[in-house]
């Protein structure tokens, strides 16, 4: 079976990208489309008036910093893995995972802050949209954390190194994407508020 798979993947590939990696990119396209739909719905709805004005929770600045830091550490881990520096790989990916979980906790507190401001999920769509954006992004981020933990475990089993980078590369791509997606959402909310 193993032999067979090797053969299939060894067959002539018209483009250099690994099929699974390519599939991940396509998956990210679908995520982009979901958020494109939601954010354009936000703009369309906002332009119709009857829109609740409120300040964004300040904690978003901290969580944004956390997710950027997490991406930086993961990238460090990725570069280390390419150089076969396995200790740094493990440290980097562990910190990235912890920061990812921290981000999720921070997002939860942003909901607490919203409730304190009397902005609820049920009510004016201005508030509801914010819950949907953060909630749906957090759901995707949870899938990213699970992916990180899987790669983390395999890094402790010596399965991530310069000769075996595909899962690591996919994980890094996805994580950067999710971080970038958050920054987009945050900037979008800042600009259209």
């Amino acid at each position: 079976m193993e032999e067979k798979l090797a053969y299939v993947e060894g067959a002539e590939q018209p483009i250099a990208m690994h099929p699974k990696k390519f599939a991940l990119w396509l998956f990210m396209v679908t995520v982009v489309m979901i958020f494109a739909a939601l954010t354009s719905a936000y703009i369309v709805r906002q332009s119709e008036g009857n829109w609740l004005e409120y300040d964004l929770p300040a904690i978003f600045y901290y969580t944004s910093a956390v997710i950027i830091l997490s991406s930086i550490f993961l990238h460090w881990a990725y570069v280390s893995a390419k150089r076969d520096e396995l200790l740094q790989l493990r440290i980097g990916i562990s910190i990235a995972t912890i920061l990812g979980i921290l981000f999720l906790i921070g997002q939860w507190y942003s909901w607490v802050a919203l409730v304190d401001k009397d902005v609820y999920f049920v009510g004016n769509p201005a508030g509801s949209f914010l819950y949907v954006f953060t909630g749906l992004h957090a759901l995707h981020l949870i899938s990213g954390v699970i992916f990180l933990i899987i790669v983390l475990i395999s890094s402790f089993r010596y399965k991530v190194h310069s000769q075996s980078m595909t899962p690591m590369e996919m994980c890094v791509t996805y994580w950067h994407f999710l971080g970038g997606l958050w920054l987009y959402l945050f900037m979008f909310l800042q600009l259209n508020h």
Partner: protein
Amino acid sequence: MAAANVALHDTHDHDHDHEHHDNFITKYIFSTDHKMIGKQFLVTGIFWALIGGFLSILFRLQLGFPDMELYFLKPLLGGWIDDAGKLDPNFYLALVTMHGTIMVFFVLTAGLSGTFSNYLIPLQIGARDMASGFMNMLSYWFFFISGVIMFCSLFLENGPAGGGWVVYPPLSALEQAIPGSGMGMTLWLIAMTFFIASSLLGGINYITTVINLRTKGMSFSRLPLTIWAFFLTAVIGLLSFPVLFAAALLLVFDRSFGTSFYLADIYISGEGALPNTGGSPVLYQHLFWFLGHPEVYIVLLPALGITSEVIATNSRKPIFGYKAMIISMLGITILSFVVWAHHMFVSGMNPFLGSIFMFLTLIIAIPSAVKVFNYLTTLWRGNLIFTPGMLFSIGLVSFFISGGLTGIFLGNSAIDIQLHDTYFVVAHFHLVMGSASFFGLMAGVYHWFPKMFGRMMDAKLGYIHFWLTFVGVYLVFFPMHYIGIAGFPRRYYSWTNFEFSNMYTDLNMFVSAAAIITFAAQFIFLFNFFYSMYRGKKASLNPWRSTTLEWTTPLIPGHGNWPGEIPSVYRWPYDYSKPGAKEDFIPQTVPLSATPESNLPHEQELVKLEKEIIAEEEQVLVANGSKEA
């Protein structure tokens, strides 16, 4: 259950001697082989087509024979037939809703694209299987779960979803509105979520496979038009289904959590105002039609791709304008995303916006007309062979023309204001999208049946099936244009209450009778399909004398499709009746260097390049040989 499966598994292991031993469960149920998954989609699609068709017969009985007493349906429909023997009006709404949902999504999306993309992509591009067999299996099973949920909703006490297949809020968002907005609507949304997941998993796989796993020499300019169509269909699905997901998600929040994305200031049956404020129902329509319109092309493009292949093969002529076909499909793909609001001309949208969407909509007529022209010119003076598949393909072209012409009317917002939501629209999309895609599906089944099951379908039964269906479809849908021009709205339970529509009672009776006959004709196909699967005439390796790669596999391809190396490709897929060639077709696997007698000047130049590729190929062969040793 488990014991039964084990027993079956034992007998199967003895029966079949496969290179790699599948038991019953991994071979027929949780299969990761693209051919089996394609067949699973096909059989499930046929099952749903029967249900969807049957539902339409039920509401046609109501429309055509309003005074009929339907007691004989009581054993099946129970409480939905009231004491006077009449169909319950709410159930009528549920019937049209479920007919639309089932036909659009389960039959013509999953049953058409799911079947043929899965079955043909690896075989026609020369791949062992899909990029991810597991994801492919998941795609089918999500579709299956979605189907089970939708099927269960048919038996709810309050009936299945009843707000139309477009499920516009606030009708669909408020349980108090109609019985069909209760539990049935909830199940509809859950089922559609699974369906979206299934489509996306499938689409990601199709795109990845076409881009990454083509065999040597299979450049994009040598892809059969079927593959181009499936590829672009998957791209459309990938970009539009997430938007439906977003729309459905917000609707779920409105229904179950009390948010107000689509709801505002509603008074309902004297209860006083609902607490919801600030929502916008038009927002839902924008989000829905951003999927809804591309969905039309998700349904239609695969059928057009199949038709290109079948018409070229059975005209024994190269497809006319191969590049024009690709460019027009690309054009349709892009335009499909910028015309959605032509479904909303009467939704209170800014009229200026309407005129922009009208303009963009009418542009789609150009690539569509190019395709029609190319089909006709391919047929023109060809050595036509009227196989059942060919007849269904020609039928598709006919529907595409007659249904497409009314699209030009409807695309004009000024006329659409009169015709919107009348039977004219019903006639239009049933011809151009419903029947055309259905005929594409049928053409595909008749054409690739020998590859799927190693046997031929009976051609005579195929002809009877074709003529009854073809004539039947026109008899059903053509009269609807007149009813629509007279102004009768769709989704209405009864015709007899208004003087202007009363006069169409006879015509409706005629339509209903034609619909029943057309539906009955499908059982000829059903018999032919299952009978031929076991008792049909054994097929030859290449029964239609076609050029594409799938006909170079063994009669029943095993796991991995080709027993040895995957063949390389040296030419485009439409070398039919090439001047100078001995046969009237040259398979894609025949090198140009082997056919000096028929090569065109520019092909003669490619021969040198080809020799280099063959040399490279031999190196790979040697390398693989040593690996196996």
